[in-house]
């Protein structure tokens, strides 16, 4: 098998940032990867991709987890004429042991291109480039090793979360456990697409939202607290004395609700917690002195998505505060109620965020049995087009 010439790609092997081209070449003993290099070089020359849709592929009994991929140059690059993606459900918080990693490498080395994404944008381990015939063997070896596939298509997508309590002092609930629990609880919804469209869940331990849940998940659980921010006055003074931080300008001055008052003389910081919107800024700026309150839980938001079809949406508040305790029954009930309504009345390829806007948030709440709360909106309606219900 002749080494492919890839002059354009080769230019991407230089420079300080680790090179994906070098990565591809590391696996170049695989004939699939040889053809991939060839096809990719061709794309770089022609400024156009060479992949196309194709028949759905997958593993027995699952509707999701594999993305079928075919090329439009099967003659030139036969080894990538089938080049499917296998999505493997990552462990909570993307924690691994070296053994676990090696196990995955062994399986993927035997049956595929040897190329991966660690990780996909949704959070899965992505095996990049498998032939149809290899899918079942990959699956059975994965399950033997204790791994399972992730989601794709109109199903519950692989939930993901931040490191949370495993590696962060600000976690207001156990993101790792919640994500594991919910993923196990909804295996059927994950593997067998039955929704109008995809449904993503992301769990962030605090309002810093290190998994971008507010932008990228149909259901976002963002840790927060109800009581007062914990202040360590001694540590506050330490920050003041150390002097690197301008507490008035950069902490109090940047509080979105201006609810912090800084007494420079006394070197004391006071917070009007009633007006604190739990943005995290002051805590971020003074991690040794401030921390979230003790009465912790999460704000539940719904409906984030990318632009297709009606335009991108950020998630919006559905439950201002919920305690997050295993087995998370209230969240599971909420999910079931939402899924039932959406599955019955949602249009094909209508994300739940678009669905809510179409039927109206007020009606949506009524249907799933939640009370309207002013926390759900930035302001009450301004237009007088009210559907008074006199019946």
């Amino acid at each position, binding site marked *: 098998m002749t080494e492919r010439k890839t002059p354009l790609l080769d230019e991407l092997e230089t420079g300080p940032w680790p090179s994906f081209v070098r990565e591809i070449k590391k696996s170049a003993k695989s004939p699939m990867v040889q053809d991939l290099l060839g096809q990719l070089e061709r794309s770089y020359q022609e400024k156009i991709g060479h992949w196309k849709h194709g028949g759905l592929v997958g593993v027995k009994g699952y509707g999701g987890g594999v993305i079928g991929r075919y090329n439009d140059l099967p003659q030139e690059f036969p080894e990538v004429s089938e080049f499917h993606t296998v999505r493997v459900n990552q462990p909570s918080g993307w*924690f691994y042991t070296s053994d676990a990693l090696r196990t995955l490498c062994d399986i993927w080395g035997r049956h595929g291109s040897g190329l991966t994404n660690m990780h996909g944008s949704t959070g899965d381990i992505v095996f990049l480039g498998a032939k149809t015939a290899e899918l079942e063997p990959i699956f059975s070896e994965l399950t033997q090793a204790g791994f399972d596939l992730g989601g794709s298509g109109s199903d519950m997508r692989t939930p993901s979360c931040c490191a949370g309590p495993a590696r962060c002092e600000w976690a207001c609930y156990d993101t790792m456990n919640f994500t594991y629990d919910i993923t196990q609880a909804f295996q059927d919804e994950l593997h067998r697409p039955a929704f109008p469209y995809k449904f993503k869940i992301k769990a962030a331990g605090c309002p810093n939202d290190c998994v971008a849940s507010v932008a990228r998940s149909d259901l976002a659980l963002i840790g927060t607290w109800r009581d007062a921010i914990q202040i360590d006055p001694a540590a506050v003074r330490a920050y003041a004395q150390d002097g690197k931080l301008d507490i008035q300008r950069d902490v109090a001055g940047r509080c979105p609700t201006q609810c912090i008052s800084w007494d420079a003389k006394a070197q004391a910081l006071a917070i009007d917690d009633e007006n604190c919107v739990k943005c995290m800024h002051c805590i971020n700026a003074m991690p040794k002195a401030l921390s979230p309150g003790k009465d912790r839980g999460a704000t539940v938001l719904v409906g984030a998505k990318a*632009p297709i079809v009606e335009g991108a949406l*950020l998630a919006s508040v559905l439950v201002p505060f919920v305690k997050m305790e295993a087995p998370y029954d209230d969240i599971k009930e909420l999910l079931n109620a939402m899924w039932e309504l959406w599955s019955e009345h949602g249009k094909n390829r209508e994300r739940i965020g678009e669905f809510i806007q179409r039927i109206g948030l007020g009606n949506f709440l009524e249907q799933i049995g939640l009370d309207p709360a002013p926390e759900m909106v930035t302001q009450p309606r301004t237009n007088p087009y009210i559907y008074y219900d006199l019946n």
Partner: protein
Amino acid sequence: MAAEPTKRKTDIGPPNYEKFLPPIIKENYGKWKYHENPRPGVLVHVAESGARLYTVRAATPRLMSIETLRLFAAIADEFCGGYLRFTSRNNVEFLLADEGRVDPLVARLRKEGYPVGGTGPGITNIVHTQGWVHCHSAASDASGVVKSLMDALFPHFERMDLPAKVRVAFACCLNMCGAVHCSDIAVLAVHRKPPKINHERLAKTCEIPSTVAACPTGAIRPATVDGKQSIQVIEEQCMFCGNCFTVCPSMTMADPENDGISIWVGGKVSNARHEPMFSKLAIPYLPNNPPRWPEVVDAVKNLVDVYARNGRPFERMGEWIERIGWPKFFKLTGIPFTKYHIDDFRHAGESFRRSAHVRQTPEG
């Protein structure tokens, strides 16, 4: 070859994360007190117990060979009992209990070509997508643009020298798998021509009603083209989103001459200070110029440089622009403001300036 399984297992879900946590995390799980960021790429988390967990964060290209994963595994064995993790932005993190091993580990990773950094007020890995490596929908390559950008932005990965975090994201089509829509700097590949319709194959490959329904602007109508059931596109109504192609392979968007890249700024995700924001259009179009996309790299560097000079501590790019106002942003960056910058989709009117609050430009 692995022995065939006796019984086919399904629905087992992911492995329990607990198996993968190092002892120091198990012991201090949920009991962390505070953290420090002593140097770029190194974090120290201090527990109530006093225990100190060291994290060393290294860059990855995300697209990795299993050879590299085996290398990471070996390094983890050598330095930290085999414990590692990946981040939500595709960096790798090694988790150490022993401070003494931090410097050697940093050196080793650098030597292997996986430099350490990405923490604090700087630039970390670029969330991105498949591009020409694997997706049919791509208007540009993902990995190539990202590599070119990170080579240029690299100093900000190794140094924490910006007013705040700058989150850069890339997506290769409007599906936005990189969820670029809330990034400080979003690099978005775009098509600019209506779909080319293959009427031959369409009836066979596509469901006409769902294809018509797929169009956000209603530009698609059912039609019979030389006898065949097909569709037609009202070209003036097409804004090139490619959603029709997603549901109907016989409507191709890719176009070597006209595809290219748009740049968006001022989005954010965190709730810190300002609420989360979408990114806004800065540059409507730059050409696809592989292998290194110089126009795109220069444009992004310019944005970062102007922000670095003018932003204040803790001020994300979008917060900075809100403070100085968009007219000033366009002036400082030298980017022309065009009709493309004015929204004309569903809620366009919500972005019009509906007051006399105008920063006026003194005469001359």
